């Protein structure tokens, strides 16, 4: 087993190096794909067998590697998402002048992701963790170097490094106290410190609100396949770290940790999807939607911790399984949607939602899988997103049924919030599918779009099939996934998710019943003969391009209802010439309140503090000598009164 895994890593490494010389470039992507496939096979085998391979976690500092069930599950998700991403990258980068560095950096990125998951000591973990941050940043800078992109990368690195200090603090403390090897347990204050540091550190990288400000900046500017890996799997690897700390090394985690995670997840889910809804650029919208999905996963993890604290190990395992199921589901549909967005932008040129349209018929090989991805992320039944959200809701209801008063209210509020975020996600992806795929094309570029090469189409179709499979077979996966929780009691397995206290979720029964009725209706309505083609009636309105519905128009009702929350800005300027209106310009925008209301003041405060600090640096030698003398006096005074030494 470990031979296969090492061979996979060697193939990935060879693929990365092969991209650098011009002569071996052609072999780079096939090598990387072979490596990712072997890595997936090895990881799935480890999950299926349930026996760890390689080293166990240790407190030492030497490099050591190994895989247990939890790492192997995440590694399987990473490598299965990397496969289609690499396939699509081959098409997207063909002939690009930056193909060599980008392919090499993609391979490096996949290796870094795998390294974080396989690391079995603190230093190796942290080394790969930093590499995982830097590889996509370099890829973004290689692909584009205009000022806004450089600024986005700076914000990404700044926030993830400041927040990432929490990861260093947590892991080094755990290694120092001998917790990683399972030899010791942390006490009260130190445990609280480690948990808080881990939530800040891993939460920043996972994109949990309010630490998510970098994500909607960095994810949209990366090349599509790198965006897919960042949104689809990198943020999940951060959640893997959080799971390790909270459920394994700090177990049993205190109640406040679970409730904090629940609250952060809820804010992320609602804020993420609300801001996704009002975006006009497809990739930025997808990035905000990733924040929502990470929020849903965090809610499920928080519920798992709280349920474990409330003495309900079985439901705690179910909530944990729900979180992992959503990790897999989100990896599938978000990779699909980002790769689809890349394919669309390669064909049309821009991803402004109001300038696409009609691409389902013009690019069926991209459009149809993209439609499946939209339906899956919208959380409709029998596709990937539904089962995990259903399980999350059920776990939250369980908190309300059996928890103490405070926990019950938290569970009820979280359940309502998750339900609202699911409905918002449906709204959001109806808008995306409608504007991108349906209706008449809105620009000449969209009207002239042609399908992408076969490798991209294959990658997208495979991901759509995974979305369907995850929707149909969650009951087979759930017991396996729930069993990966440290100290878990697995729920019963079967074709339907049949949990006591629920009415059961039988995806296969649902799909058969829905399919039979729908087929019957199609036959019955089709019997009347083929319907005549005619222009859309639209209540007698003529089809004027200027009258077509826009992204902003479709969400207007919701924006008006939530005006006090979203604070949209609107500016209408009427240019009149000699009393006759010559031109009316309209500008509307929904500012990102986390940026304007939270990070803005912080940034301005930091600038002002820096301004004050600069005044100390007068450049005068006498002044500096004065500082030194003052310092010596203060230190002597402290020694004198006994504070020091």
């Amino acid at each position, binding site marked *: 087993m470990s031979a296969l895994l090492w061979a996979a890593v060697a193939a990935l490494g060879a693929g990365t190096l092969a991209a650098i010389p011009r002569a071996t470039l052609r072999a780079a992507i096939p090598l990387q794909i072979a490596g990712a496939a072997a890595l997936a096979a090895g990881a799935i085998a480890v999950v299926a067998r349930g026996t760890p391979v390689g080293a166990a976690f240790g407190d030492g500092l030497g490099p050591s590697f190994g895989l247990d069930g939890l790492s192997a599950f995440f590694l399987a998700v990473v490598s299965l998402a990397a496969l289609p991403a690499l396939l699509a990258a081959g098409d997207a980068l063909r002939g690009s002048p930056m193909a060599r560095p980008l392919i090499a950096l993609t391979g490096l990125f996949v290796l870094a992701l795998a390294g974080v998951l396989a690391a079995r000591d603190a230093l190796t973990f942290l080394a790969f963790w930093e590499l995982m941050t830097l590889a996509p940043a370099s890829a973004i800078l290689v692909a584009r170097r205009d000022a806004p992109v450089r600024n986005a990368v700076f914000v990404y690195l700044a926030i993830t490094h400041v927040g990432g200090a929490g990861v260093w603090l947590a892991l080094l403390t755990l290694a120092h106290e001998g917790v990683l090897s399972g030899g010791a347990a942390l006490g009260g204050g130190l445990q609280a410190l480690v948990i808080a540091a881990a939530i800040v550190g891993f939460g920043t990288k996972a994109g949990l609100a309010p630490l998510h400000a970098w994500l909607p900046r960095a994810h949209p500017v990366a090349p599509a396949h790198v965006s897919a890996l960042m949104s689809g799997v990198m943020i999940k690897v951060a959640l893997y770290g959080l799971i390790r700390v909270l459920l394994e090394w700090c177990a049993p985690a205190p109640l406040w940790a679970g409730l904090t995670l629940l609250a952060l997840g809820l804010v992320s889910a609602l804020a993420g999807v609300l801001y996704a809804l009002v975006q006009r650029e497809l990739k930025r919208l997808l990035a905000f939607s990733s924040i929502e999905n990470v929020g849903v996963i965090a809610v499920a993890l928080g519920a798992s911790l709280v349920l474990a604290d409330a003495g309900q190990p079985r439901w705690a395992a179910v909530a944990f399984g729900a979180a992992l199921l959503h990790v897999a589901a989100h990896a599938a549909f978000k990779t699909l949607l980002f790769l689809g967005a890349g394919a669309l932008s390669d064909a049309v040129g821009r991803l402004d939602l109001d300038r696409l349209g009609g691409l389902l018929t013009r690019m069926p090989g991209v459009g149809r899988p993209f439609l499946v991805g939209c339906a899956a992320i919208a959380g409709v039944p029998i596709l990937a997103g539904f089962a995990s959200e259903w399980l999350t809701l059920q776990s939250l209801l369980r908190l309300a049924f059996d928890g103490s008063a405070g926990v019950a209210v938290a569970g009820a509020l979280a359940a309502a919030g998750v339900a609202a975020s699911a409905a918002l996600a449906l709204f959001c992806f109806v808008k995306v599918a409608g504007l991108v795929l349906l209706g008449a094309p809105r620009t000449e570029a969209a009207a002239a779009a042609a399908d992408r090469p076969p490798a991209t189409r294959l990658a997208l179709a495979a991901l759509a099939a995974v979305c369907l499979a995850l929707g149909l077979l969650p009951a087979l996966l759930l017991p396996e996934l729930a069993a990966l929780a440290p100290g878990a009691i697995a729920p019963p397995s079967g074709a339907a998710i049949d949990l006591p*206290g629920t009415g059961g979720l039988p995806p296969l029964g*649902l799909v058969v019943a*829905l399919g039979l009725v*729908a087929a019957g209706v199609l036959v019955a309505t089709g019997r*009347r003969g083929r319907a005549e083609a005619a222009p859309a009636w*639209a*209540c007698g309105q003529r089809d004027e391009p200027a009258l077509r519905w826009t992204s902003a128009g479709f969400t207007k009702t919701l924006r008006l209802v939530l005006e006090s929350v979203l604070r949209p800005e609107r500016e209408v300027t009427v240019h009149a010439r000699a009393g006759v209106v010559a031109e009316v310009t309209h500008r509307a925008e929904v500012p990102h309140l986390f940026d304007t209301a939270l990070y803005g003041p912080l940034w301005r405060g930091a600038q002002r503090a820096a301004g004050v600090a600069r005044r100390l640096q007068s450049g005068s030698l006498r002044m500096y000598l004065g500082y030194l003398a003052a310092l010596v006096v203060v230190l002597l005074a402290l020694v004198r009164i006994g504070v020091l030494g």
Partner: protein
Amino acid sequence: MSGATVAAGALQVAGALLAPLAAGTVQTLKARLQGRPGPTPLQPYRELRRLWRKSGVRPVPSTFVYALAPAVVVASVAVALLIVPIAGHAPDWGVGHDALVLVGVLALGRFAIALAAWDTASGFALMGAARDLTFAVFAEAVLVLAVLLAALPAGSTDLTAMSAAAAGTGVWDDPAHWCAALAFVLVALAEAGRQPVDNPDTHLELTMVHEGPLLEYAGRELAVLQWAAAARLWLLLVLVAELFGPKGGGFWVQAAILAATVVVLCAGLALTETALAKMRVLRVPLFLGGGAALCLAGLGSWLAGAA
């Protein structure tokens, strides 16, 4: 499988046929209350027959999304009918009896019809779809809270268990059940597209919510979509009667009580639709927010009772 279960299954299927009758009854009662003679309760069947004989139209541009949407909407409502038990009994159709699965299945229909609105890109259809999706954001949150409250006595979201636990007068001692019933009715009005949230009898496109996305459809496709609207009303009437209506006796007595409750609910609906005008679109979330407040108050009362 007992006789009651088989009979309940037969009644579930019969609901598909009776659904237009419930919608017609409300229409007739409403007309009488407003001092008009009004149509007979059988009018919806006549409309369906009329539409069934007409040929369809395929708008240009439209894709398979538009063509499949009616089938998906009908399938979602039909499966929802199978999920809801009748008089506390339901055969195992293989679709489960979970309240939250029901919420998801209804969302599937909403998704399909909203996409169909985008497919023809007709402005009025999109206006209706956008409003429907906006209401759904609030309605789903309140619905989950109401399901939570209604599930508290049973400790389960299995609709059969919820129905059984709501039998007798004991559950009504806790204000939580009253709050759940009231909130459920508010959400049901929004989900079924009735006044004061939406006016199903309107012919003014600008005010349409649920009717808007149907504007382009014709012939048999329109017929099945109109049936689906009636069936959604029937489903919600049965669900409210099942969870909050009186119960007692054996299966057939209970089924008779259920039927009577549905008739009473139809009359109540006619009365409120006569008394209340449709509210402004932007007020609907406030209306549903009231439902959320009721649910939280109910949860507080339940927790105070349990402590």
